[in-house]
């Protein structure tokens, strides 16, 4: 773990891999360290935004007990999915299976939201075992509907609103993963465990 400077108010914690990000983020969110205003995990880093005293928070970060990996506990979310995505057959073939096999594998594993990015409420979900490596579309779609369930790299995610997008689409959910009228607005927050249920 390396703690890198990020201006007047933030620190960037660089970690070895996504498992370390999951573990470090979980420890930070559990602990609620004084002076920490925001915790922004990403693929290899966790940005810690402070109230204005990064030096004070830095010492606490370096003493924070944590271990790599998912948390056993943590909130669980089930998302019903219609597995009728435009790329379902192509992705299945790429992974050496058929659509039924891909659906069984996608719905059969537990995913954890590692971090959010791309758009508010877009959670990058990582599987508990054997991540796939799915390439993004060479030419992104100009319009992906809200609720579309996609795969890219080792992640799966749900488009929170209509937007352009390059993830390969395997299905869709009717659940609003980001809803400004709900508290919390984002269902897929870092650390949340997700299961996709065929419907």
């Amino acid at each position, binding site marked *: 773990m390396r703690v890198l400077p990020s*201006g007047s108010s933030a620190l960037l914690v*660089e970690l070895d891999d996504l498992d370390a990000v999951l573990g470090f983020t979980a420890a930070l969110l559990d602990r609620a360290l004084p002076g920490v205003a925001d915790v922004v995990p990403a693929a290899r880093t966790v*940005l810690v935004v402070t109230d204005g005293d990064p030096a004070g928070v830095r010492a606490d970060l370096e003493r924070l007990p944590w271990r790599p990996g998912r948390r056993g506990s943590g909130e669980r979310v089930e998302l019903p999915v219609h597995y009728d995505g435009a790329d379902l057959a192509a992705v299945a073939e790429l992974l050496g299976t058929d659509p039924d096999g891909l659906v069984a594998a996608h719905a059969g594993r537990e995913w954890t939201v590692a971090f959010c990015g791309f758009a508010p409420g877009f959670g990058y979900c990582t599987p508990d075992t054997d991540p796939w490596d799915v390439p993004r579309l060479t030419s992104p779609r100009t319009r992906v509907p809200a609720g579309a369930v996609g795969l890219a790299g080792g992640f799966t995610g749900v488009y929170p609103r209509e937007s352009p997008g390059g993830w390969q689409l395997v299905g869709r959910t009717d659940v609003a993963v980001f809803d*400004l009228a709900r508290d919390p607005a984002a269902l897929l927050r870092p650390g949340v465990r997700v299961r996709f249920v065929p419907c």
Partner: protein
Amino acid sequence: MLTVLAPGPLTTVQDRGRPGLGGIGVGRSGAADRASAALANRLVGDDVSAAVLECTLGGLVVRAETDLLAVTTGARCPGSPVHCAPGLLRAGTVLDLGTPPSGLRTYLAVRGGVDVAPVLGSRSTDVLSGLGPAPLRAGDVLPVGAPSGRLPGVDVAPVADPPAGPLTVRLLPGPRADWLTAAALRLLGSAPWTVTADSNRVGLRLAGPALERRVSGELPSEGLVRGALQVPPSGAPVLFLADAPVTGGYPVAGYVADDDVDRCAQLRPGQELRLRS
């Protein structure tokens, strides 16, 4: 109540933004020049969290529908009788902001604050994510809330206008300074940078010498906040402002000190910026 007769090039509602939501991919947003917005609120006796109007390059015309205590701060527009000097706008009075001779953003505060519906705890328009109220349009009627503090009893705040000439700000270390060559890092902190026309609330695009990268690989996206100086492969840095993305995929080689980001938010296209460590 306040009626918008003309919004100018861009006027948005802004407050202190949405801190603490980066984890769900929501950026902070808020007034681009926080110090000027906070000053405006203090001068009308409101809490610094009250919402104000952020007017870009003048052009905002509003009519007071009730008697309102109002003030403008930031870029000084001709036509504002209340610049840094709070005064009463009687019902029916029209405030017509001209183009400021220097600076870019003018803040209009009315006592009680602009009381549009908050989104995720803030009334700020985030032009990147689209969260918050839409930019103002002619005909919009803005409710005014209840005062959130005591009047300060200040007639005039002696604040310097934003400079029309070069601006020098403090450069702090960024997490990926080592992605630049030593020569490029020196250039970042010594060359004159020119603000280009494709700048907005998200960030300032800076023109100057190309910054050569020592590491050419790709960086997985990582978190950043306003003040970040990101260096894309083109070598032309971007200084992120209020509506910065939550994460970025190019190395952040340095940061502008947070207080100084307010001053950068007053820079106009063509103006010169120098970064000094």
